[in-house]
Structure formats: C-alpha cells, structure tokens
C-alpha cells in the first residue's frame, strides 16, 4: 500500500544491506504491439514505460500476467522532432521504450487480427444501402444534360 510505482515516484534511497524495494500499486503501463520487422515465434514486442528496467518487465509479466519469461531486451525509440505546426514550431513525437520478450517453456505467440471482417447486421446494411442510394441520387443531379456528352454547361447556349 505504501509505495506506488510510476512516473515521478520517489523511492527510498538504497544503500548496501538495506531492504529490497517493493512497489505495491505499480502504475507502469505495458502494451503489446505488432512487430514491424518479423520476429521469431517466441518473441513478443511491447511498448513499456520509460522507467521500466528489464528486471521490472520480467517481474511484471511473471507476477501480474503469469507469463514465463526467458529473456528481455529493451531499447529506447527516439520520437522525431521534424514536423512543424501552423506556427512553424517543431512538434515532438514522444519517445518510448520497446521491449522484446522471449517466452519460456517453449511458448509461441502470434499477434492476432483485432479487426476481422464481421457480418453486418440488418440495421447497418439498410443504413449503408440508404446512404449509397442517396449518394447516387446526388451524383445524378450534378451531372448535366447527357446529350452534351460530359461537356460542362456553363458556356455555350
């Protein structure tokens, strides 16, 4: 209950022989991402809080998610500062830490497809039909005389 881990958390000073730091309500986030470069089957790619170490990530996954972890490698991805807004000020994309976690006990992981094509129910289908018909009608109104062969009618007789 006492120590909460996260950004701007003040931890007690550690000196040799002191007690092990324990965090009771960690605020560290961890999200699984689809790897940009194909990874081996046992490797899962995460984006983690910047303050997390490899030990932290291992304990997090083992204790909270009950996932056996064999190895963790981390790197910090620098977010670019090239884009400019309407005031010509540079806009920074935030930095983030990427962790490559290799699962133990021979487990494999494949990032799933979270947006599969689903059958539309009757309501959405009818709405889509209605919308398509309306768009067709609007387009027909815009078209000019078919006898002119696509020539605009703002000039001529």
């Amino acid at each position, binding site marked *: *209950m*006492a120590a*909460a881990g996260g950004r701007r958390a*003040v931890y*007690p*000073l550690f*000196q040799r022989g002191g007690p092990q730091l324990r965090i*009771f*309500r*960690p*605020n560290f*986030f*961890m*999200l*699984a*991402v*689809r790897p940009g470069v194909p990874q081996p089957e046992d490797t*899962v790619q995460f*984006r983690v809080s910047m303050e997390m170490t490899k030990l932290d990530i291992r304990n997090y996954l083992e204790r*909270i*998610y*009950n*996932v056996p972890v064999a190895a963790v490698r981390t790197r910090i991805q620098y977010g670019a500062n090239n884009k400019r807004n309407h005031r010509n000020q540079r806009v920074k994309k935030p930095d983030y830490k990427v962790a490559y976690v290799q699962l133990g006990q021979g487990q494999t*992981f494949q990032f*799933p*497809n*979270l*947006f*599969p*094509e*689903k059958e539309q129910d009757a309501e959405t289908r009818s709405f889509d039909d209605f919308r398509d018909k309306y768009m067709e009608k609007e387009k027909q109104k815009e078209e000019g005389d078919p006898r002119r062969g696509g020539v605009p009618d703002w000039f001529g007789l």
Partner: protein
Amino acid sequence: MAAAAAVAALGRSLSAALRLPRARPGLPGMALNLYHKNLPKVETLPQVKFLHTTVSRRGLEEFFDDPGNWGEKSVKSGDSWNIKQLRGKSSEDLHKLWYVLLKEKNMLLTLEQESKRQRKPMPSPERLEKVETSMKNIDLVVREREIALRLLQTGHEKPVPGEWRNDFLGRTFWYSYKEWPIPWHLNKKHKKKRFYYLPHVNHFIRLRLEKALRKRARQQSLERTRRKVLERKFPDVAVKSQSQ
C-alpha cells in the same frame, strides 16, 4: 498425513483464491462486470478434501479483449468507479481492483495502438478515460487512508517532511527533504543552490504581485458581467437566486 496434505492444499488454494483475480468468463458482457458497483466478494470455500478451483485463463490473452468483441464498432462498458463507492471497499478489494484496472488499461492501450496501425477507429475510446479516473480515485482513497493511519501513529500528515523556502527569484515553494547518502555540506552541487534572495529582487516580487492581483480582478469582473448578462436574459432565474 493425508489430512495434513488436504489441509495444506486447502490453505494453498484459499490463499491462491485470495491472491488471484476473478476468472474471466468468455462472455461478451464481461466488460460490464469490471465497472459494476458491487465487486463480488471472495466466497469462503467449503471444507472438502479435494478442491477444484477454476483456473483463470491468464497469459498474453489478457492483453487483448474478449475475442467476441474484436471487429465490433463499439463495446458497452459501465461508468467509472466513484470515490464514494471506493471508500466503502476494503484495502484488499482496492488492491485487487487496482490490478484489474491496470490490466484493462494495458488492453485498451494495446487496442489503441493496433487501431492506429491498422488505420481503423478504436471501438469505444472513452473506456480509457474511465479506467484512468478509476485508478486515480483508488489512489486518492488509499492516500487518505494512509494519511489517517500516519496521523494516528506518528502525528505527521505528509510521508516526507519538508518546509517552505524562498528561491533566488523570491518565490515561495514547498521544499520536501530528499534522502542523500552524504550530508548537505559535502554536496557541492547542492551548495550552489540558493534558498534566499537578495534585496534587488523585491521590486520584481512587487511586479509579480501586481500582475496576480490584476489577473484576479479581471476574472472577478468577468464573472460579474457574465452573471449580469444571464440575469438580464433570464430574469426569473435571478429572482429565484435572490430569494434563496
């Protein structure tokens, strides 16, 4: 021997049941349960020799939503936890709820990133705000309880002692003490910091004060004019407020 083993098994499963979060049934309405007001309490297990507790399907699946919700346009979810509701919960329940909310937040962040990657809209992004406010409220409640306990035990309100100090620009701020391995008079960098200001800064303190007063006066007059405009537009409301 068998009785001892059974008792040990009972103790282990009880402690496991208390430690583990609830098993997630694979129903589409499962998301509602997380935000529901009444968190189901852990039931006391009956005294039987062989215990079969439902093993929750943990693992990397918990980074993703229920598979029935994949591809949906919107997912139903209840309201966030209120402070008043959380104050009625025990510390153990709050501890478990914190981890439930943390896992939910991780799942939603995963979904958000994947939706950005696939260039599709994220279903019900308001769930993230609800989870964040719930976690903030839990933090507040736990902090309140800690402060109460600390006041009773030690008489101090804050976990870290501190004092009001002036910086070199004349501003007053709360300086909280930090733990250092060496005393302050041996810390070269700390000795360069100045917690006092010289007399020439008084002029700038005065200017800062005038600026703050002007800002406050502007805000008050704006509030007064806005109220007058409303009273002119809706005179019946003005009469009610005066009578009260």
